[in-house]
């Protein structure tokens, strides 16, 4: 959707207006400000690396979301298909109009488009036509082709958007023309045969908004097709549709079913569509409908599973690992403010952008071949980015052994003379560091998953899984963040203790689940490295004899803790402790992990009003944040609007505009004097007198001019405040204004 159409959409609380940029790439302008320690064109390289990493992450998120929504999509499809067959209850006094509502809190529209794609498989099959059809815009229905199986229900789809439904005739016209008005070229290769378009004379034919027109068309359609299709009407942004119009639409359509097999598909963004329907529509209208609601996964659960599947899945290796600071912020933001998919994506993107600000991140993907390494080396040589090399060197050795006691030098650094190192060798060292990091990260992900398997199992058995702080268990995001911090020792020990106490049947089930985790690994490398674990699990399972408790003594026996419990528990503890290591111990770790970088929360959750008030009160501080402009901040040195605002803040609730002007003028006087001071001493005493004598009249002119200028500046400042919403006019006292802001923390 283009930003201009976003502006008309009242569901959007924020709209991004892209800067109308000239084709000359704006990365250049950023590059000018780039600090020195970079490759030449360093910013470009970083941005490229960012783009690669972010698009991988985005793709993964999309795939995960799609996977999570797949059951909903197929359920919606089934509801639509069964709308006039299986779902109809026998013995009802009248046929209900089937309405399938898809409630996607947070406004994710992808379910609807997936369902429509399922109903319109041709569009995905023939990619060429997709482009053509999508340009045809709203209100147009598209032909649907189903597979050739005779059992499948065919559907035709019409799309209705809030703009189509300003009144009942427009709404009916949009629905009817959505089906009836189609053109010849769409008919090619379709299972459903469309009636040939005939020329209707507007005066003597049925009106465009007459449902009889649709009936006539459908009769012709049924004659052509032995199994006539269902008519699906998609109501986009259902909450925005006018209920007074829609209730008539529902009434008219319900009068004509089941001869016209109409199905309404609602695209709703409210968390509870039924509550919403009841609030907006009368009982009589709802009684005509049969609503089935499908709620897409949303909120905290969605956030948790998306992050887990993207950053903690053993089969996916993200380019950048989220550090605990980022995870903390995401956990906090999604539980406190909103956990919509949009918010998560925005946060992830900002995290990525921030991460790639550091120049070393241009090496984030390492070098997959010798040629790539050589190329980078040449580029560094050409541009002589020595500071970069310097920092690489310091990081490699400096971080590896800061005190020489606590940490050992990594394997790949041992015996390498750091003083005379070729550039290529340095870069290949970097590659080794990356491999080392990736290995550890993969281990961490696997360890985390194993802990989660045990946690889920224990929860399913009805046990509490973590020694919680205040009676509430941590959310998954918080747990992830603690994993990254390396502070899950207590949880793991607690789990190991629980494993020890499981009885045979439970242990057997748990081992089965653990095994399936290793069994399902897609990544062959990881799979091979975990052969030991798999073997242990198989062995342990073989040692357990599942009990079939039928006799009372058997039941008692079965309740006993398993003999294998301790060994499984020990293995679990050692396995997990071995793998859940923190990732910030390795050299150069901050290239691949966002680490301790806190999230710039002001970017996603700003406080515009207070920021504006503060900017008006302390403009120099704001400016200073970018450039040093003002040395000090005396009142007279401030810009006009700020001066007026300070005066405004000092006043009471109701301000006399003239008083405000007077106080403003006083400051301007001071400003004039102070600014004039440096100029006066230069003039000779004599000359000054002379001027004074000669130009008495011009001086009066000057004063008048000055008064006018003060007037003008006052008016401008006042209007600026008015524009920003700080001034409320009163009807009673025309020369007074109300304040709108009080008691601002200065």
């Amino acid at each position, binding site marked *: 959707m283009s930003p201009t159409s976003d502006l008309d959409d*009242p569901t959007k*609380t*924020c709209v991004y207006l892209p800067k109308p940029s000239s084709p000359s790439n704006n990365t250049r302008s950023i590059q000018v400000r780039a600090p020195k320690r970079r490759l030449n064109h360093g910013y470009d390289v970083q941005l490229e690396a960012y783009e690669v990493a972010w698009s991988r992450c985005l793709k993964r998120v999309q795939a995960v979301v799609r996977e999570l929504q797949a059951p909903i999509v197929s359920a919606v499809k089934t509801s639509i298909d069964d709308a006039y067959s299986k779902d109809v*209850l*026998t*013995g*009802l*006094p009248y046929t*209900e109009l089937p309405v399938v509502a898809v409630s996607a809190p947070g406004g994710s529209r992808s379910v609807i488009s997936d369902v429509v794609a399922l109903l319109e498989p041709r569009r995905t099959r023939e990619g060429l036509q997709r482009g053509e059809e999508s340009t045809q815009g709203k209100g147009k229905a598209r032909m649907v082709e189903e597979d050739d199986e005779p059992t499948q229900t065919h559907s035709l789809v019409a799309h209705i958007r809030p703009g189509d439904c300003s009144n*009942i*005739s427009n709404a009916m016209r949009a629905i009817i023309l959505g089906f009836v008005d189609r053109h010849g070229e769409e008919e090619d290769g379709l299972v459903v045969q469309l009636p040939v378009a*005939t*020329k*209707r*004379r507007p*005066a*003597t*034919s*049925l*009106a465009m*908004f*007459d*449902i*009889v*027109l649709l009936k*006539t*068309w459908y009769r*012709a359609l049924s004659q052509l097709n032995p199994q006539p299709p269902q008519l699906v009407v998609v109501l986009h942004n259902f909450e925005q549709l006018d209920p007074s119009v829609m209730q*008539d639409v529902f009434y*008219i359509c319900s009068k004509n079913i089941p001869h016209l097999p109409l199905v309404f598909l609602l695209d709703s*963004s*409210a*968390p*509870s569509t*039924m*509550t*919403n329907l*009841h*609030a907006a529509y009368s*009982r009589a209208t*709802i*009684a005509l*409908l*049969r609503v*089935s609601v499908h709620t897409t996964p949303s*909120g*905290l659960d969605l956030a948790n599973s998306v992050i887990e599947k993207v950053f903690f899945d053993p089969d996916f290796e993200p380019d950048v690992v989220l550090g605990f600071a980022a995870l*903390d*912020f995401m956990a906090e933001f*999604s*539980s*406190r*403010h*909103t*956990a919509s998919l949009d918010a998560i994506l925005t946060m992830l993107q900002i995290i990525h952008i921030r991460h790639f600000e550091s120049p070393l991140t241009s090496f984030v993907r390492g070098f997959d071949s010798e040629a790539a390494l050589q190329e980078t080396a040449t580029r560094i040589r050409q541009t002589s980015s020595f500071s970069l090399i310097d920092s690489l060197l310091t990081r490699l050795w400096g971080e590896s052994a800061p005190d020489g006691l606590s940490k050992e030098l990594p394997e790949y650094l041992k015996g390498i003379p750091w003083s005379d190192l070729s550039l290529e060798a340095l870069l290949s060292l970097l590659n080794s560091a990356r491999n080392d990091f990736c290995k550890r990260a993969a281990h961490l992900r696997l360890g985390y998953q194993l802990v989660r398997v045990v946690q889920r199992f224990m929860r399913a058995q009805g046990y509490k899984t973590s020694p919680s702080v205040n009676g509430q268990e941590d959310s998954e995001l918080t747990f992830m963040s603690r994993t990254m911090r390396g502070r899950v020792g207590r949880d793991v020990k607690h789990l190991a203790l629980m494993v020890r106490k499981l009885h045979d049947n439970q242990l057997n089930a748990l081992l089965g689940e653990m095994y399936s985790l290793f069994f399902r690994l897609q990544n062959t490398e990881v799979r091979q490295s975990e052969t030991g674990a798999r073997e242990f699990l198989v062995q342990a399972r073989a040692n357990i004899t599942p009990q079939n408790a039928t006799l009372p003594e058997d039941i008692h026996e079965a309740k006993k803790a398993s003999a294998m419990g301790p060994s499984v528990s020990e293995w679990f503890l050692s396995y997990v402790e071995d793998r859940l290591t923190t990732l910030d111990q390795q050299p150069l770790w901050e290239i691949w992990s966002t680490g301790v970088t806190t999230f710039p929360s002001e970017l996603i*959750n*700003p*406080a515009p009003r*207070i920021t504006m008030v503060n900017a008006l009160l302390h403009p120099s501080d704001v400016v200073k944040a970018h450039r040093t402009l003002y040395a000090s901040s005396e009142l007279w040195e401030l810009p006009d609007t700020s001066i007026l605002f300070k005066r405004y803040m000092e006043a009471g609730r109701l301000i006399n505009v003239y008083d405000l002007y007077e106080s403003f003028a006083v400051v301007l006087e001071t400003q004039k004097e102070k600014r004039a001071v440096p100029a006066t001493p230069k003039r000779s005493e004599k000359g000054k007198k002379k001027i004074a004598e000669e130009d008495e009249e011009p001086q009066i002119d000057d004063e008048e001019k000055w008064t006018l200028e003060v007037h003008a500046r006052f008016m401008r400042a006042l209007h600026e405040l008015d524009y920003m919403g700080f001034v409320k006019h009163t009807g009673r006292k025309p020369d007074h204004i109300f304040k709108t802001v009080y008691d601002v*923390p200065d």
Partner: protein
Amino acid sequence: MEQGYEDAISHITSLISTYPPPFIYIHDPATPHLAALAVRASLDRLRESSDIRIRYAAVDAISCFNPRLLYDTVLNALAEWEPEWDQGCSNWSGPSEQRFNESLDGFLHGLQAVQASFMSPNGQIDGKGKARENTVTDEDIRLVILVERAERLKESMHDILVPLSRLRELSRTEVTLILLSDVSWEHIKPPLGAAPDPYYIDIGPLSKQAILRRLEVLFPTFHDTQVPGDQTYDPALRPLYAHFVSTLYGICSPYITDPNELAYIAASQWPGFVRPILDEHERRVDEHQQARMEEEDGIEPHGEEEVFVELRPPTEDVRIRLMRLFTPLITAALDTLYPRLSFANAWAKANVPPTNLLSIPPRQLPSIPIHKLEDQDSQATLKSLPRMAKFILVASFIASNNPAKTDMRMFGRGRDERKKRRGGSPRKMSAKSTAVKIPQRQLGPMAFPLDRMVAILGVLLEENDADYRPPAPEYTIPGEYTEMEISRITVFSQVMELSASHLLYRTSPHDRLEMSPTFKCGIGFDAALGLARDIAVPLHDLLWDPV
């Protein structure tokens, strides 16, 4: 379809077949949709009979939302003309190929043309295949226009209401207009006596017998049941159905008497109700089969012989047991299904009784669990809200229920508060005054400006949220964090989101920008209390008028 409407129908039938008045108004305040069905059925019957020749058009004022649609629909129906797609969906245009839908004048001409073609058998109308041999006089033919939901004519076509009511005299045809509505003519009729008085027919509410007869008629015949082998609506169960609907009527009649609604509840309950009987029947079939197997033990069975055990209606005793078991379920269904908090098919699926209920001894019978579907939905919605949304909802509940002037007393913290307290409590004042003050919670929520709610939100956050905040060392002044928090974008976008999902109602128009927008709280006391408990806010202490 005429059960309960016999009197009115015979009235109308005799009127139409003898000397039809030009304008009839049928007023049925209770069940106009059923009255319409009955009138239509009687008109159909009249058409079938050979005494008089009648054509009628039944339209409803919602479907025909503008004059052109009304003209088209009426003329096509009177001419018994069905538009064809192949012929460009053209309307009936009479022998002279005229256009009749342009204006009222055209419509009047259309009526004349319809009557003319009706009279002459050589006209273009396809007279249902029956060639009328002898020409007929004016008196033998009737044109009837039935308009349902006539109350809507007042909004959509108020300017042609007067000509419609004098249609016979304007068109000089034998047309009769019947308006049918649940609103009386007094509320619809054009001002200044412009329209003539109609012939009034008032229909009273249906009697109990009529309603029960209607419900019994709705028992689907054998052909209607779709799934073969499904015995839910077996004809043998018809007597039981009669008892069932009469019990249902007994339970529901204090609240609803609309036969359609009763039938709706009956349809949702019946499959569950007969399940035990069908289970029992199946058990008997199995037993029978086994007995036969044992009889034929050793002997070669005679191929695939179908064992036929007749489905027997249950005994009086079983029926009473079932009724007693299902009464709470029917009450619950009434509570849920009448306001359509859930729908019949979902209810029928969710509330299937445990299998083989009848094989359990009567004394050990458990009560059937009731699955109300709607509650979990709305509660889960509220539970899953983000923390800030919960705070906002509680703050708006307080803002909607406390009078604005009490805010300082309830939330003022600091010196100002004590100063104000000296003024005395308004509760005493209200005790003195003669007018009884109705508590706010019974009056419904008040509208409040956004600023006020945000201020209350600030107090709630400051007092109840401080422990849950992430550390923020940059805020040093007490209250600064809260001050920042309540002016952040997410608070406002949350308010917009909540109002989109109708948990808050926006009472000021969207396009008014110059003032603080006003809202109303959309949740009830119980929901607010639940939310307040979630975020540990002592809601009772913060309400001016606690329950």
